[in-house]
């Protein structure tokens, strides 16, 4: 019974990662936008929803006690707007500028989470975030399973919506822009406009994932949104294969399994005083894994990104 409970807990976390990866896949896999500030957009969503749904707290702004679903919608809206502004500022420039700016966004979001106590509760974070099915908390198994069900439904909806979007005319324009920007522009598509939209929708999904997680754990703190989170999600997407929504979901579950498994392994193998060092070795291993996949299997498990040679156009095969 414990095993099923743990399995449900594990899958819930993995599927929340999957929602973030789906958002990142829309930005990177489909549109080719490099976001190094994933953790920032997730944090914006989590804090927005937490502020809107928690009971009134005199030490900080709000606690408006709104229903959870409204919190989720608010999280998507605010994260999406933040992503749209970021995209608007940088998407007319070289792609590296977006990477640097999103990195800056995640740094600043963490700074605000840590220091704007009136808004975010500071280092102590926000507690008492309402959890769906809180009434079931006495029977952990049922509670975990119902949480898993909710997260699974959200993931499935996000997956279906993205599959539909990527086959729609809108998604085809994004793919065209990724593959050959000049050709797409010559057909009258505004590159910047479409990219900002894709970036905003991806950001909204990340915000939703942050909100879902906040309501699953019931407590959030700035430490949850360190650059580590961005890094994990990137590894998940690259392992699964950029460009494939199925890959994003499978990669998330797989990498989270490796992560949790190796974490449990180091916890049993190393004495408590060496745990921190062992944990950093775990990160080294994942970082090396990311580089090795980029080098030897850039398409991951299910990816369909084509890596065109910019300077090798003349080496076209004779047909």
């Amino acid at each position: 019974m414990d095993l099923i409970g743990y399995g449900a807990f594990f899958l819930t976390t993995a599927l929340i990662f999957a929602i973030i990866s789906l958002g990142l896949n829309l930005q990177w896999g489909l549109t080719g936008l490099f976001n190094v500030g994933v953790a920032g957009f997730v944090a914006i969503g989590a804090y927005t929803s937490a502020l809107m749904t928690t009971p009134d707290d005199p030490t900080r702004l709000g606690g408006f006690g709104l229903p959870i679903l409204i919190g989720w919608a608010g999280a998507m809206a605010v994260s999406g707007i933040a992503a749209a502004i970021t995209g608007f500022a940088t998407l007319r420039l070289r792609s590296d500028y977006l990477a640097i700016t999103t990195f800056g966004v995640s740094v600043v979001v963490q700074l605000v989470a840590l220091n704007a106590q009136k808004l975010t509760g500071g280092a102590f974070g926000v507690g008492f975030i309402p959890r769906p099915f809180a009434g079931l908390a006495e029977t952990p198994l049922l509670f975990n399973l119902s949480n898993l069900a909710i997260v699974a439904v959200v993931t499935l909806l996000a997956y279906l919506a993205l599959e539909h979007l990527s086959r729609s005319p809108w998604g085809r324009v994004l793919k065209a822009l990724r593959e050959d920007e000049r050709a797409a522009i010559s057909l009258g598509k505004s590159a910047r406009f479409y990219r900002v939209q894709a970036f905003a929708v991806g950001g909204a999904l990340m915000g939703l994932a942050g909100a879902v997680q906040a309501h699953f754990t019931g407590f959030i703190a700035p430490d949850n949104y360190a650059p580590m989170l961005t890094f994990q999600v990137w590894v998940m997407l690259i392992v699964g294969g950029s460009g494939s929504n199925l890959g994003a979901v499978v990669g998330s579950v797989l990498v989270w399994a490796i992560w949790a498994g190796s974490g449990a392994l180091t916890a049993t193998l190393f004495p408590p005083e060496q745990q921190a060092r062992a944990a950093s070795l775990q990160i080294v291993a994942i970082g090396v894994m990311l580089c090795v996949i980029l080098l030897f299997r850039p398409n991951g498990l299910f990816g369909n990104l084509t890596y065109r040679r910019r300077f090798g156009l003349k080496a076209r095969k004779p047909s």
Partner: protein
Amino acid sequence: MNLQFVVDGLLTGSMIGLGAIGVTLTYAILRFSNFAHGDFMAWGTYATLAVVGAIGAMVGKVAPIGPFSFGWPLLVALVVGCALTGLLALALDAVLFSRLRARGQSIIVVMASFGASMALRSLLEFVFTSRPTYFSRAIQIAMPVGFGIRITPDQVALLVLTAVLVAATHLLMTRTQTGRSMQAVSQNPALARVVGIDVARVVRATWLLGAALACVAGTMVGILVQIRPLMGFDMLLPMFAAAILGGIGSVPGAVLGGLIIGLAEAAAVQFVGAEWRAAVSFVILMAVLFVRPIGLFGVKER
């Protein structure tokens, strides 16, 4: 008004500026923003620290030079540290970056540098733990120099060192064959190759120069503040902001950008609050991107 923040700002700015030279050269010549540059900084500092320790084990305790907190071992170690950091950059380029560059998608290289940055930093944490260390725990007496400003001998030495290094780098870039080849590759790699410039050599020179300056900047942080595995990663955003503010590819621009950001950070610490320091570079970065994305000394991209 207390003008102390000017000295603090110039010092922070020197460290950011020296680091930003490497960022801006990598961006202009290798055409990607290197997220691992901050970790070169941290690795260089720990390498210097390790060499200082090794020298100390061999010759025993060495008295510091004059009024400074360090003796000759640190100077020797700094040179060795720069060489080791250069080797690290070359090794990383050989196994990772050069192969991905050959595929022609610069953003994949950026992603790889992000992964490498995570791995390098965590490796430092594994070897040295995340506890801060110091080159010297001695406390220096700050000398008053008028206008309510106080400055320690170490700070004077490091400001002078920065000025010398920046001037030397500028001369290297404008007066030597290597430097001119680097500028040629940054402006037009295909044409540079046609006129017989050895691009592989230019790439090596870029890595060595950037890594050595990162090592010096990191060691400065180590002398003035403290040594932590995260020290380089925390400097990454200011360095990027300085490189973009100065204009990509411009060495004087990177240094000036670094000084501006350093002064702005110090002013923010004094007038707004120390906890918001890290937001300064982001605000400046956004302002540059909206108002003048090519930076102060930048040239339009072709």
